[in-house]
């Protein structure tokens, strides 16, 4: 059964100068599932996320990816192992074209990225794959445009295309729906579902209908601790979860 778990965190804790943002969280993400991390503001979701990808270093606890202990590795090394994250604020390379944004990701496995003496025309052979990825997220008409000129929802799509270019085994999406217009939400949700067909997705998300719709498993965090875990139908009836979100009703 161990093989079924792609990402496992045990006793994950992060303190900022005495303030405990994440406290003793245990998390197991099943392979090929969509796992959501939810919780009210300040619950430690994003901190948890940054710990998993090592953009923050945990105070204590271990993280295992595919059975390998990745605690203490650099963010870039973790990405190269196939665990790739997105950011809350759409992360694109603003003054590169849409195509070049994706191409930068495709370039990484080529191991040519320190070659400063060769012409970048050698990257042209990546163009077809870049364009195919761009088309898959519905950005084909914008391929030659600088990313900065895309509307917000399209930047999200571009970010996902760039992430997919790495062919990651697992994606960590930090609030993929944040700031999106209604019509964009449906499109991105479909995209995530499509992507998750042969991958694992862990996401932090506030939009409950998206979470209910997409997730196989939900982990609820509150004040840095794990409150509940399970499928949406189960978690949504959990009394402590309702309390955390709605309050006790007595003020």
């Amino acid at each position: 059964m161990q093989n079924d778990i792609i990402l496992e965190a045990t006793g994950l804790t992060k303190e900022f100068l005495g303030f405990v943002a994440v406290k003793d969280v245990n998390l197991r993400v099943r392979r090929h599932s969509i796992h959501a991390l939810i919780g009210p503001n300040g619950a430690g979701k994003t901190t948890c996320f940054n710990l998993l990808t090592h953009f923050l270093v945990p105070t204590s606890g271990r993280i295992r990816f595919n059975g390998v202990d990745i605690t203490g590795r650099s963010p870039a090394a973790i990405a190269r192992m196939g665990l790739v994250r997105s950011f809350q604020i759409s992360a694109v390379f603003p003054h590169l074209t849409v195509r070049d944004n994706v191409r930068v990701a495709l370039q990484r496995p080529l191991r040519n990225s320190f070659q400063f003496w060769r012409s970048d025309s050698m990257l042209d052979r990546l163009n077809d794959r870049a364009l195919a990825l761009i088309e898959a997220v519905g950005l084909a008409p914008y391929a030659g445009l600088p990313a900065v000129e895309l509307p917000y929802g399209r930047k999200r799509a571009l970010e996902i295309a760039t992430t997919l270019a790495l062919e990651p085994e697992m994606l960590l999406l930090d609030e993929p729906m944040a700031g999106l217009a209604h019509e964009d939400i449906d499109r991105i949700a479909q995209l995530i579902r499509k992507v998750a067909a042969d991958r694992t997705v862990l996401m932090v998300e506030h939009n409950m209908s998206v979470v209910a719709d997409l997730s196989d498993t939900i982990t609820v965090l509150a004040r840095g601790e794990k409150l509940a875990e399970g499928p949406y139908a189960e978690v949504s009836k959990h009394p402590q979860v309702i309390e955390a979100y709605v309050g006790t009703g007595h003020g």
Partner: protein
Amino acid sequence: MSTRNVGFLLLAVALVAPWVAYPVFLMTALCFALFACAFNLLIGYAGLMSFGHAMFFGLAGYVCGHAIKVWGWPPELAMLGGALAAGALGVVTGALAIRRQGIYFAMITLAFSQMVYFFCLQAPFTGGEDGLQGIPRSPMLGGLLPVHNDMVLYYVVLAIFLFGFGAIYRIIHSPFGQVLKAIRENEQRAVSLGYNADRYKLVAFILSATLAGLAGSLKAVVMQFATLTDVTAAMSGEVVLMALVGGIGTIFGPVVGAVIIITMQNYLAATGEWVLVIQGVIFVAIVLAFRKGIVGEIADRWRAYSAGSRK
């Protein structure tokens, strides 16, 4: 007008220039143009603002001069030595400086350049405040090039400048340059894609330092002396000014900026300290009026114009 056409036009100007203008002045301008291009490689394409680039420029001048005058090296080898010395200094200072960003990065480079300044002031081989004087113009390539003649030396300097400029162009348009631009645009995202940003920044820093050193060596050969002025913080500031005036992140900008600043210093030298005041005024005017520098602004207008005429 494409980049290529602009390049050919500038090359044509550079080829006939010594028949019209004073060759030593033109050679000085080329040295500073190469220096500004090397600096621009770092700020324009890696997004790193160095405030200590004079240490590479100045130190390389001393090393190159010493190698020619005391060790009797041929100038071409001495220039290579100067560039490599600057590159080695770049490895040490860069490895520490790139750990910090923005203003902290700039301050670390400034601190290092001040250390190098005091080293050059005190070291036995630099001649202290007098500088290293009387560097002979020994013939190059085993006597094939009689560089004591200004006209011959001019074309040698132009060839070396073109080599350095071509190297920078290639670096910018290489697989490495592509990643560098991505890191400049969004470092965190580049890291999340698996690129170890610090290593790319360090390589860019070393390349920039080496090319700045080549420019400094070239200047020592042209002027026949290496001076303390070239290691000062003021010189570090001057190269920032040249890149800004011409246009940071444009390929020709630093060349134009360097030519403008050197011309100004040359023709306004008679006004004494007023050169600095006039330079300051021009700097403020350009930053306010053309935020992208002269070349950056022209390129933008040209793009807008040709886009408009296509419609």
